């Protein structure tokens, strides 16, 4: 039966060649200057332009993922309460379709809808006399990316939150009401504390997702906004300056940010797993 372990050989070789060794290649060339070990590239990433890029990316990701997490929580909460299976099925289908639709087609959809000559922009102008462009909305800037990010982060938040939210027991809520509590007291004392691990985990995953978004921002804004993934892409693709070492240093820093925010997700998942186990053993006794 030991022979069966050979089945693991191809997949570990695959991971080594196509993920781990290239990743270490990025690490080593980010640390290699003209004369061996050097931190030149990292020093460059702390210059104004790249510092600003990290700041903008973080701010955009944080605001959009926090709003998406709260909004996703509200939707999941509402969904569980409607108890209409048809509606729930529609939402699940809709959420997964949007998750598949994300990326380039979604960016194109946004340009067709909210661009300067987009359908909704023109509609608002002609029929409601609301000029969103004059109001400062620009699809190629922070405001536009924020709206676009929300439209793929929200369905993701709903998918991630739904299992946790539907594990809230109806009896807890009823017990609270019997004892004279209000809905908001129930939220504050029971629902939110119970769901906190999964909310933090969802937030970590959404943040990482937003932070590493390249296609949507590339198509909508291109070089007109200073974001880390776009800058890395330009290091490979740009005809102006091909600076792979600097791209490597930026990539390492991005990987650290992603690693930290993803670890929130895994930590929270383990926590809620332990929670579930404790609950089960408590029920058994």
């Amino acid at each position, binding site marked *: 039966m030991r022979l069966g372990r050979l089945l693991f050989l191809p997949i570990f070789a695959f991971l080594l060649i196509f993920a781990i*060794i290239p*990743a270490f290649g990025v690490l080593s060339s980010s640390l290699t200057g003209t004369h061996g070990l050097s931190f030149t590239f990292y020093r460059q990433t702390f210059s104004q332009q790249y510092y600003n890029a990290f700041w903008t990316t973080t701010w955009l990701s944080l605001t959009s993922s926090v709003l998406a997490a709260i909004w996703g929580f509200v939707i999941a909460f509402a969904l569980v*309460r409607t108890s209409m299976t048809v509606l729930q099925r529609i939402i699940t*289908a809709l959420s997964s379709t949007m998750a598949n*639709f994300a990326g380039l087609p979604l960016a194109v959809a946004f340009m067709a*809808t909210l661009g300067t000559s987009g*359908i909704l922009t023109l509609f608002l102008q002609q029929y409601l006399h609301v000029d969103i462009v004059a109001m400062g909305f620009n699809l190629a800037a922070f405001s536009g990316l924020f709206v676009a990010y929300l439209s793929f982060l929200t369905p993701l938040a709903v998918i991630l939150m739904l299992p946790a939210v539907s594990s809230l027991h109806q009896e807890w809520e009823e017990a609270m009401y019997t004892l004279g509590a209000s809905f908001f007291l129930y939220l504050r004392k029971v629902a939110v504390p119970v769901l906190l691990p999964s909310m933090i985990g969802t937030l970590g995953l959404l943040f990482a997702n937003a932070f590493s978004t390249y296609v949507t921002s590339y198509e909508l804004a291109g070089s007109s906004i200073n974001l880390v993934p776009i800058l890395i892409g330009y290091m*490979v693709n740009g005809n102006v300056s091909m600076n792979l070492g600097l791209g490597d240093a930026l990539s390492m820093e991005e990987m650290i940010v992603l690693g930290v925010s993803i670890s929130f997700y895994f930590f929270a998942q383990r926590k809620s797993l332990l929670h579930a186990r404790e609950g089960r053993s408590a029920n058994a006794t």
Partner: protein
Amino acid sequence: MRRKWISKIVIFFFILQMVIPVIGLMIFSIDNEGLFTLSSYQTLFTDPSFLSSLMNSLGISLVSVVLTILLVTPPIWYGYLYSPRILRVLEAMSFITFVLPGVVLGLAYVQFFSNPPFALAGTPTLLPFAFTLFGMPYYMQSVLNRLRHSEAKLYHDVARSLGSSNLRSLLRVQVPLLAPGILIGSILVFSIGMGEFTITQLTTGGSFMTLPIYLQVDFQNNPLAGAAMAVIALLIAIVLVSLTLGTFRRRKKRREAIHVNHSSVEQAV
């Protein structure tokens, strides 16, 4: 009663949020200064480079699916049955893709695969491997879910105790048992392959036309045709999602059927 009403309003706004860009896109693709037109779709389907990029995308996605099935299924199955510890290592390693987004992996590939032993950058050869890597965590979870819910080990042991060979049990019992999980995982990998843009652009420099690359170029030159193309991408997404959900629903029914119909194992042996 009032709260149900609020819930419905919340859901209504969520649906609105999801649907508005889609409706905008659809109107945009058939709007010719207020008049209805399908010319953008016509241009698209008569454009030979659209058809060749469609073929490229389908081809590369299918190759990725086959690669994923062959590479990932056997170790997961074996690991679940006999070496859970190695499986856990593999599962943890598959999540490496979450810290290796498209741009970073693209940058890494361009550097690592440009030197003679593996001079693959600039050709589409790398793409199926990249898509397999991206799809791996999803594929693994979908097959593992199936394994967890189907008592695969029990069936394997029963089949062998009734005198079946390992290989026979594998082909006649285990593969049909895992088929729904493999199918859902494959659809997920396939849809990653159909929509991937970043790695394709960075490693081939746009020389290999896939649907997303074509869409990106086309929307710049001819927004109408680009919008029509995005509508087609949406239709592909809808088909793939309904396939997964359909399989999912049937799977539930079949799970019950498997529990009832133990004799099917004996027949297979």
